[in-house]
């Protein structure tokens, strides 16, 4: 795709992106031995090699990854506007749709790579440090990490839509974090409204593990896909009408 390579390079060559990727890799590697020491000291088994990746994933999808996503997105849209570099891309002979979709695609790839990094290192930690690491656990963990891409991407598209209203990346980031926190609060306080928000599904991999494919899961999958399509369209509309 035109411009995707360009967007990807911009994203990945940032020092912050590299540091965050290294931190993502280190996080499970540090937590694993730490937990092991705690478990021995206070004699409990919160998780073993089989469930450790899933525990890390539940932390990652609820706090860590949405934050990183918001950071990348607010840099990519508001940040470039702030630095007045976005105009250079817009004058190239590429349609705005292509520019927009290449940015979304770059975000998606970034998210997938982050998930894979956390998955790999948490699996390694589970295999090396914790007891009871099984092949079945390995397969479940990989599937759960891949499934988590969908709800996170739906949240990412929502953030992409909103950050375009902000001219500075720091304000965009602050707003995205607040938006996410509100969505999390709604999940617990107003469950009926929460069903309409993608944060409701951020731990939907647990649903897949518990029931496998069911009519409810089909409904949630349909929701997530159509939500993503809707927000992609709305985000593009905003992007195409905006004057930089």
């Amino acid at each position: 795709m035109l411009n995707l390579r360009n967007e990807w390079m911009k994203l990945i060559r940032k020092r912050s992106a590299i540091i965050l990727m290294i931190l993502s890799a280190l996080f499970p590697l540090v937590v694993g031995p730490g937990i092991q020491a705690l478990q021995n000291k206070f004699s409990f088994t919160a998780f073993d090699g089989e469930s450790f990746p899933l525990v890390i994933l539940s932390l990652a999808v609820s706090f860590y990854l949405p934050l990183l996503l918001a950071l990348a997105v607010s840099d990519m849209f508001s940040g470039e506007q702030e630095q007045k570099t976005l105009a250079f891309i817009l004058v190239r002979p590429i349609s705005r749709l292509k520019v927009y979709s290449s940015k979304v695609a770059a975000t998606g790839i970034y998210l997938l790579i982050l998930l894979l990094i956390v998955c790999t290192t948490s699996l390694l930690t589970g295999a090396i440090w914790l007891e009871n690491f099984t092949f079945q656990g390995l397969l479940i963990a990989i599937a759960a990490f891949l499934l988590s891409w969908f709800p996170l991407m739906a949240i990412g598209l929502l953030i992409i839509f909103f950050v375009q209203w902000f001219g500075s990346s720091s304000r965009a980031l602050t707003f995205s974090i607040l938006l996410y926190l509100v969505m999390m609060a709604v999940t617990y306080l107003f469950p009926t409204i929460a069903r309409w928000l993608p944060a409701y599904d951020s731990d939907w991999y647990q649903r897949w593990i518990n029931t496998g494919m069911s009519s409810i899961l089909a409904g949630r999958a349909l929701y997530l896909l159509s939500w993503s399509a809707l927000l992609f369209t709305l985000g593009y509309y905003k992007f195409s009408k905006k004057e930089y």
Partner: protein
Amino acid sequence: MNSKMLAAVGISGLLMAGGVISASASTSGYDLFKTAVKKTHTVNSFTAHVQASLVDNKNEVYTVDSTNKENLKSDSGSSSVSVTNGGKTTQVDFYNQNHQSVIKSSDDAKFYVRKGGEGERKFKHKKHKGEELSPQMQNDVEGIFDALTKNYQDSVTSKDLGNGNTELELTLSKSEIPAVGQAVASFFLKNLDQQKEHMDKKEFGSLKFSDLKPQLPKLQNNIVVSSVDLKGQVNADQYLTGQEATISVSGDEANGTHHDLVLHITSNLDNLNKTEVTGVSLKGEKVVQMKEKHDRHED
């Protein structure tokens, strides 16, 4: 907005609504369970048959069989408990009447009486009364509970048993049990020795509470809750009349001996709102008055 984009927004919006509505319009067993729990909470008398057994490496090491009659209105109750611990069976009867508790064991002809109905029974009642929340709070609690269990709700299956009874079942395999559950279970098993020491010291003549406590193997490593199976039976009036739980735990002792423990508990309620508690007559019996002791819950 041009027509193409409007169409895209319209179609995806409609699909989204379809997805949300189809996912929430399920008549899952979870809703029936909630209704039944709320309704069962309002009964003021019942008879409960509770049975529990503990199997260690396929040997039954501990069983409890009890019949409990409870009338919350008149604050009276009686239960007859039979405990088989390592092949030895002990029968203990508890009565709660006229603001005093009476304990009688099969090992002893005497009746032990404690004034004020102190002890576990009162603790149980307190708990019962404390659960009366305002409707607003009840709604909030329900909302939080719904959010916490949202990934488990559609795993509750329901089966029609005929004559208006419905069986609900939730089966969780190892990877489905939340990490918190695993942590609590393993912590409990590893620290069994330190628990309920104040209970052990209680004696009623030849009856010692420590005799009634199951001798569990001292698990140290690889403690895992391997499966949890919960069943509930809801009758035609939407009361939760039957409950069944099977919990399997495995682990190794310090010397490497492997244990598979299976705890099985069933509870059946009947005579809802119709239970009459028949007390025990202490006339002509040997009665031992117990001194009031303040139970502190140290554990």
